[in-house]
């Protein structure tokens, strides 16, 4: 299943406008890639193609343990994570999985896109990968806060 459908994506991109979509060529909802390690969330194909991958329906009963970074990331997104002898159990209350895909998936990849686009680089990395990831994470977090503040003002 795709927790965030095309209507959710359009609503989000309409909110952020050209600042987020400039230079973007497309957003594709795809099946999980075969053979990759870990459960893929999203990807950016430079220049400007964002891929969002399908996710299993919650709750997730994973046979592997999650890394500390991933566990913290899921906690920040509102997931309930429990690790036991039988595996890792992840539940997504309410719309948290949809928001996780929208911000930790879509907006994170758009953050990568903006960095590359601003540097006008299509074949080489604009900065070190760790810095790239850190800035994309920061962009996604700012986007989440801006979105939350918008809806808090309207409620």
């Amino acid at each position, binding site marked *: 299943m795709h927790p965030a459908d095309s209507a959710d994506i359009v609503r989000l991109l309409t909110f952020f406008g050209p600042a987020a979509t400039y230079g973007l060529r497309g957003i594709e909802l795809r099946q999980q890639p075969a053979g990759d390690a870990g459960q*893929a969330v999203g990807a950016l*194909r*430079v220049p400007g193609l964002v891929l969002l991958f399908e996710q299993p329906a919650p709750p997730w009963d994973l046979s592997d*343990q*999650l*890394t500390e970074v*991933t566990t913290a990331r899921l906690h920040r997104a509102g997931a309930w994570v429990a690790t036991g002898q039988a595996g890792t159990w992840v539940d997504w209350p309410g719309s948290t999985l949809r928001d996780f895909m929208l911000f930790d998936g879509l907006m994170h990849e758009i953050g990568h896109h903006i960095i590359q686009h601003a540097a006008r680089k299509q*074949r080489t990395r604009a900065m070190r990968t760790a810095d790239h*990831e850190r800035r994309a994470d920061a962009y996604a977090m700012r986007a989440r806060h801006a979105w939350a503040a918008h809806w808090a003002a309207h409620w």
Partner: protein
Amino acid sequence: MSPLARLVGDGVENPANAEALADAARMFAVPCSFRDSRGLAEQLPELPTVDTAGLLGGPGPLIAVDNTPGAESVYRAGYLHGGASIVVGNERRGIRPDVLRAAVKTVQIPMPGRGVNTLNVATAAAVALYYLLDAHGRRQPRAPRPESHRPRLLLAAPRDHVEAGSSLRSAAAFGWRTVTVDDREKVWFGTPRPFRNEARAAARSHRNPLRVVPAGDAWSSPAGSRIVVCAPDVDGRPLHRTELTGIGTVLVIPDGDGWQPPPGAEFARVAVPGELGRYRLVTGIVLAEAARQLGIRTAIAPRPPRRGLSYGSALGQTSRLDTDLVQPWELTQY
């Protein structure tokens, strides 16, 4: 003294090909026999045959000539020592599995051609014999940009339409796209329909993308070109020690001695220990050597398109927990 090798046709079904195969063996002074599974002996009663036990249980090693996956290039196969049996197979089906299993080595002739990527069975046998029995001291192949050094090719005065067609098939298989034919014997252009059909069938014209250009009545070498005449009965360096490639080189393969080379031409001798062979056999050997010198490898699967720069995020997972996998039948027995 026992011969260095013997040539065996395994399941050859066309009598004309069987005769050409026997000619290839005579060209290299080796005996030739056939394992007949296609009724060939009924049409050619004089044909020497060998049964399966005689083929598989022969005194020397079996060398299969077939383009099976994993086969070694005949150019790198090394020379034979002592009574080996070189086996070529059926025109369409190739060598039968029992021989492939028993063979100590399977060799293939690398062919970069598109559309046509096989040789006539007798031509393949001649090429294999040439490289397995002889051709010592070969020139090093070119490595970079081989296509820019591919010589032009002139088939000079072929005397038989089927030999000419089979030679054009070899040219396409070894990667030539255009061949000039000095057709003074009228075997390719403007021939009666039965001859034309036979010649086109020998050339595999239905899937041969080769462009055949008539040389005209007064063919003259292009200005500044280097003409290399390749034939078995000329006085020159051995073929495999002569530079056959290079920009401006024209390879000329005459059929017989009715074609007069222009002044200044170089000569390369197709050195074979036996009788002069058929035109298709000589042509096959010359083209194989030119392709070897070019350094063109067999067409391989194209490289997948290069994926550009990408970023991805995934849920990082560590090593699998210390658990046992339980099958459903174990649960039902529990």
